[in-house]
């Protein structure tokens, strides 16, 4: 099966042109092609996972297939290759599964949209790129697909291109990611400059023996900029909330479950590079931790259902990055997997709500549980998972991160993580209490979504419950013996940590109930009391405004200055030379007076001058 693994990205990749060129006019065929392709990929991904188990492919002994893609003999060898190890296998499964479910869901969600076929073509292209990224066996290929997923993200965020906000959000996402990719590219350029290869396996062999750690640290830090952008870490996070302008299934698939996790996946893939550099690891950990807290606080004050989820996603990605930073790749990947399921579920649930109400402001919703039973139930399950209540998936994976943080001695980060857990529970249940319970608001009547939408919800709900069990202490830490760096290792269950997190989660839920679960003016009062703090949170710490100011004033200002310089100074100089020539011609022609005796005088004067110039020979000086 592994030898056919290259088909996993190729199938959706083929679906893309088929939809674009052939089935575009026939909507259901387009959906069918896309779903069939991703379903086949899913089946193969399962097959790959099975084979990884059966053949005993481990992190140390991956399987690699490659064909040359671009070669310059002796200097450059770029392969189109795939690398299969447990990490890959898990990611393949997660990606294909979520993608499959989202595509099924989209059949219902996008029903009636004029861009139905394009939507599926983009999703197929995205799946292909994402799977390619997961399978890549070298930095070049990972970058290749990294950019392509960015493209798909751009296309899908801007899917409703007639909306100026959507168009702007797409642009913002792409450009922000470009900044990150710039760093990433430089990072692996440095690696290439040092080791002459892009291949992960070859690098893994070469890096540990490399002496010049300063250079290596620089390379690693630059590579890390890539995940900062792609996984929306501070300070390149600004694009993710805006990305919610895209259709909701897209948010679920790309901006929650898979693409944004690519950054974390890259960290895992490149772990060999980071692991040897404690300083860089520290940076990674703190960036992750800070982002987790930072975005959780913002989420508390948002009103848009998708934005709350977006900030929550950022926050959870912060967790994962932090896990990587503290050295526990297992924990990070574990959380990545569980988060993929429940966050996809949350988004799809939100999509179901939006689909029904065409409204995103939670304070204009209310009492939805009465009309949308399935949606509400699944949404609550996912929220509980996110909040980290046992025995749901989120609990196990988050706990693993917190325990690892604590274990590795990052007490500060641990406290921070716990605080984030509290905030997470609070804002999620704020959302649930406001939107799904409480009074119905006027004019908004929800209705349950069609089966194509609810079935994926149910499947994901099941996964949100059970997927955590692969890594619990009760199942012998199965996940940690499967996906790991270095030695298979797991954190000994730390029951104090578990208890504390459960308690803070409950506290968060309780506080949310106090504030929002019943009629209350407490939130308003608090908001009024701490108006400036509240404004700060509502306005997301004004980061967007700062960036906008920088772009408008500094970059565009500088550009205008260059433009002026080019048009007036540089051009002025060259045009000036031309004008000088013309003017001198105009002046010189005045010598031609029209009087023939003047001409004669000029001629004889010239003769005299020449003779005087040659005076020396004339008077016998030189020539004798």
């Amino acid at each position, binding site marked *: 099966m592994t030898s056919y693994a290259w088909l996993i990205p190729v199938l959706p990749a083929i679906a893309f042109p088929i939809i674009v060129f052939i089935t575009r006019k026939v909507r259901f065929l387009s959906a069918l092609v896309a779903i069939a392709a991703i379903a086949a990929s899913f089946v193969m991904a399962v097959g790959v996972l099975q084979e990884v188990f059966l053949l005993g492919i481990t992190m140390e002994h991956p399987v690699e297939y490659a064909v040359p893609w671009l070669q310059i003999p002796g200097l450059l060898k770029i392969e189109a290759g795939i690398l299969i190890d447990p990490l890959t296998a898990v990611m393949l499964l997660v990606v294909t599964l979520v993608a499959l479910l989202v595509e099924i869901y989209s059949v219902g969600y996008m029903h009636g949209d004029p861009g139905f076929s394009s939507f599926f073509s983009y999703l197929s292209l995205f799946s292909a790129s994402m799977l390619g990224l997961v399978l890549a066996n070298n930095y070049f290929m990972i970058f290749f697909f990294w950019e392509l997923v960015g493209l798909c993200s751009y296309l899908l965020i801007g899917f409703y291109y007639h909306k100026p906000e959507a168009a702007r959000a797409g642009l913002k996402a792409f450009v922000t990611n470009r900044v990150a990719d710039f760093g990433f590219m430089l990072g692996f350029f440095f690696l290439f400059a040092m080791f002459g290869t892009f291949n992960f396996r070859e690098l893994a062999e070469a890096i540990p023996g490399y002496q010049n750690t300063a250079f290596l640290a620089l390379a690693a830090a630059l590579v890390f900029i890539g995940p900062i952008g792609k996984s929306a870490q501070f300070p390149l996070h600004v694009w993710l909330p805006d990305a919610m302008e895209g259709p909701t299934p897209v948010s679920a698939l790309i901006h929650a479950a898979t693409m944004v996790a690519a950054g974390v996946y890259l960290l895992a893939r490149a772990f060999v590079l980071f692991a040897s550099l404690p300083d860089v690891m520290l940076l990674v950990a703190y960036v992750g931790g800070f982002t987790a807290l930072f975005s959780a606080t913002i989420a508390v004050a948002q009103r848009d259902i998708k934005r709350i989820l977006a900030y929550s996603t950022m926050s959870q990605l912060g967790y994962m990055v932090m896990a990587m930073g503290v050295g526990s790749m297992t924990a990070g990947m574990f959380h990545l997997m569980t988060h993929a399921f429940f966050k996809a579920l949350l988004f799809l649930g939100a999509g179901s709500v939006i689909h029904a109400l065409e409204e995103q402001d939670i304070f204009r919703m209310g009492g939805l549980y009465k009309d949308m039973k399935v949606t509400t139930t699944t949404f609550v399950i996912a929220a509980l998972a996110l909040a980290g209540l046992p025995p749901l998936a989120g609990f196990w994976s988050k706990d693993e991160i917190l325990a690892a943080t604590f274990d590795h001695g990052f007490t500060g980060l641990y406290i921070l993580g716990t605080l984030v857990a509290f905030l997470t529970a609070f804002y999620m249940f704020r959302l649930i209490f406001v939107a799904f319970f409480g009074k119905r608001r006027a004019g908004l009547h929800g209705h349950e979504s069609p089966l194509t939408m609810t079935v994926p919800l149910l499947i994901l709900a099941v996964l949100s419950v059970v997927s955590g069990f692969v890594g619990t202490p009760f199942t012998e830490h199965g996940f940690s013996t499967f996906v790991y760096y270095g030695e298979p290792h797991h954190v000994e269950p730390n029951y104090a940590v578990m208890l504390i997190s459960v308690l803070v989660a409950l506290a968060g839920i309780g506080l949310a109930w106090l504030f929002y679960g019943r009629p209350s003016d407490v939130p308003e009062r608090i908001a009024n009391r701490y108006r400036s703090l509240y404004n700060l949170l509502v306005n997301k710490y004004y980061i967007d405004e700062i960036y906008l100011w920088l772009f408008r004033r500094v970059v565009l200002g500088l550009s205008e200055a260059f433009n002026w310089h080019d048009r007036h100074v540089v051009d002025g100089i060259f045009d000036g030379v031309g004008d000088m020539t013309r003017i001198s011609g105009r002046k010189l*022609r005045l010598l*031609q*007076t*029209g*009087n*023939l*005796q003047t001409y*004669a*005088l000029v001629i*004889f004067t010239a003769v005299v001058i020449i003779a005087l110039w040659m005076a020396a020979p004339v008077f016998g000086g030189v020539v004798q």
Partner: protein
Amino acid sequence: MITLNHYLALGGLLFCIGLFGALAKKNAVAVLMGIELMLNAVNINLVAFNHFLEPARVTGQVFAIFVIVVAAAEVAVGLALVLNIYRRRLESNVDDLDWMKW
């Protein structure tokens, strides 16, 4: 003893007087007269060279005769033109002939 240089100096002086006339006179006929002086000066040179350097041959004299012939033709054409212009413009001053310039 009159040497070649005497003749050459005389020729030079005559040439420059003629030149002055050609450059400084308004009347076209006077300009032509100046030119004739210049040609005569050259002829003096030619004949003097012939006489002092190769008396056995007549190259210089032949040259001078040709110059005289050419001068005659030039004068004829030049004066005809002067008449032509005079007939049209009632003017024989060269410094008014500046319709075409720049």
